[in-house]
């Protein structure tokens, strides 16, 4: 399982990476913004993407739109402080499969990752 972790905060990448490791996922590639991520997806070909919304250079929603525009179907979880319903709808419409609002407990993020992966496996 290859997981691409996109967040401009190294702190948040480390926290999410630690949770992924606890779940047994150690093949994790990090990107610091949407632009950085787009430059890496071709070679890495992730099975799951965790992406923040507010980032410099290219935000998460723009990344999702551009990624989906390529016809790529990889499951995407948006992990963000943006908690308004309108934002969640915007993200789902753009192609996000699941949504986690910061702050989150490790258990909450773990559950959402497991749920997303099982949905993808069942599809």
């Amino acid at each position, binding site marked *: 399982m290859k997981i691409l972790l996109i967040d401009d*905060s190294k702190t948040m990448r480390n*926290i999410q990476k630690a949770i992924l490791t606890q779940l047994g996922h150690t093949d994790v590639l990090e990107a610091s913004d949407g632009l950085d991520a787009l430059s890496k997806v071709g070679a890495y070909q992730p099975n799951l993407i965790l992406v923040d919304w507010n980032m410099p250079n290219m935000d998460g929603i723009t990344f999702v739109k551009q990624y989906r525009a390529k016809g790529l179907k990889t499951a995407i979880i948006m992990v963000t*402080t943006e*908690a308004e319903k309108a934002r969640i709808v915007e993200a789902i419409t753009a192609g996000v499969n699941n949504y986690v609002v*910061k*702050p989150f407990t490790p258990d909450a993020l773990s559950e959402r990752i497991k749920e997303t992966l099982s949905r993808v496996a069942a599809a």
Partner: protein
Amino acid sequence: MPQAQTIESAVNPNLVTPFINSVRDVFDKMAGVKITAQEPHLKAGKSTGHDISGIIGFSGAVAGSVVVSFPKAVAERLVEAFVRMPLECGTPDFVDAVGELVNMIAGSAKPYLGGVASISLPSVVIGQGYTVASMSSTPCVIIPCSSPHGDFAIELCIARQAGA
């Protein structure tokens, strides 16, 4: 389009309560630290009186700035609880962690402020005796916060905008 006018400032509890709830929630979920908010009061003077400040801007239906200020020792202990390891004050990782805490505090409060607002990427200032300038017409409210690691404060200089 009519020019935005301030119709309600942070003196109003409707703009203060979301931040009290968010700071408790952020530290509880992300660091396992219980925060107690004290009675908010109007800011007197210009200096934050602390060594480290995370600053985030609001625009849209709510405009202004939110500053979370910590004494150095408190920031170091809270950051350690957040990232599960000690980080030296002033290092890029330390600054990133403080910025992310402030980002989550502001982001968690935002949906409860009314209307559609956006927040900026966070900035972090480290030093002593600095002043964080704000919109001159907007009164600033201080929310003193207590934690097992020491006290810190949230400074709200925000106002709800008419016509935004």
